[in-house]
């Protein structure tokens, strides 16, 4: 590898890592915002929510007892999947940049 190519590869990988970090921050912020919404907003306006009913219980109560838990589950699953996909893509990018194309197995 010539010096110039190595410099380009380094710059590319720094930029790739910065973009990866930005995406990670974006999705984490999204997850945090949903958490805030479901936890604090629901509890703050619980008595207003209680005007409606969901599944036979006042909506404010149901949201705090079951709806919020369901939303947490969704946040965790979606966030986990997206992080996995992002990391796999960033790993593949650094592999390609450094010239290894196939994954190694754990024992040989």
């Amino acid at each position, binding site marked *: 590898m010539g010096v110039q190519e190595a410099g380009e590869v380094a710059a590319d990988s720094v930029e790739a890592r910065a973009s990866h970090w930005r995406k990670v921050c974006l999705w984490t912020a999204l997850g945090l915002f949903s958490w805030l919404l479901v936890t604090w907003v629901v509890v703050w306006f619980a008595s207003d929510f209680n005007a409606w009913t969901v599944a036979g219980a006042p909506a404010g*109560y149901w949201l*705090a007892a079951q709806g919020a838990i369901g939303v947490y589950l969704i946040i965790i699953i979606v966030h986990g999947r997206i992080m996995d996909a992002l990391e796999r893509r960033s*790993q593949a990018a650094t592999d390609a940049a450094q010239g290894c194309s196939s*994954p*190694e197995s754990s024992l040989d």
Partner: protein
Amino acid sequence: MAERRSRQIRPTQATRVFTHVLHRRYAVYTMGALCFIVLMALLERMGWPRTWIGGTFLIGTVAVYAAIGLMSRTTDESEYYVAGRRVPAIYNGMATAADWMSAASFIGTAGVLYLQGFAGLAYILGWTGGYCLVALLLAPYLRRVGFFLNASGFSR
């Protein structure tokens, strides 16, 4: 340059055999647990006193757990908490979930909700929301350092 790409390791033959044996062992254990419950139900029908059934449940299950613990004893922290990371993640998740499905959840939160009404939901929202926060803010980073995470560690 030839660093280990630990995220893309394919399972070797040894790991596949291990996982297959593991599935079989878990299936045997589940069937044993179901048979135990059916046996207790039959004994109750036959008129066993309530305290005896409670005692058998307690002693029987603790004996089985102790036997399993003895057979797979280890002092390695990674082995203790996550079975050396060789067990499929879904089983580890089930084990952690079983930690939380305890008397505190069933009896404790039911009682708190009865006594305090809506305010008691703070416990439920706090525990589960705590797991959510851990997954969002800590797990991806601490995973690389090898920590084991539990929401209760961050409730203080």
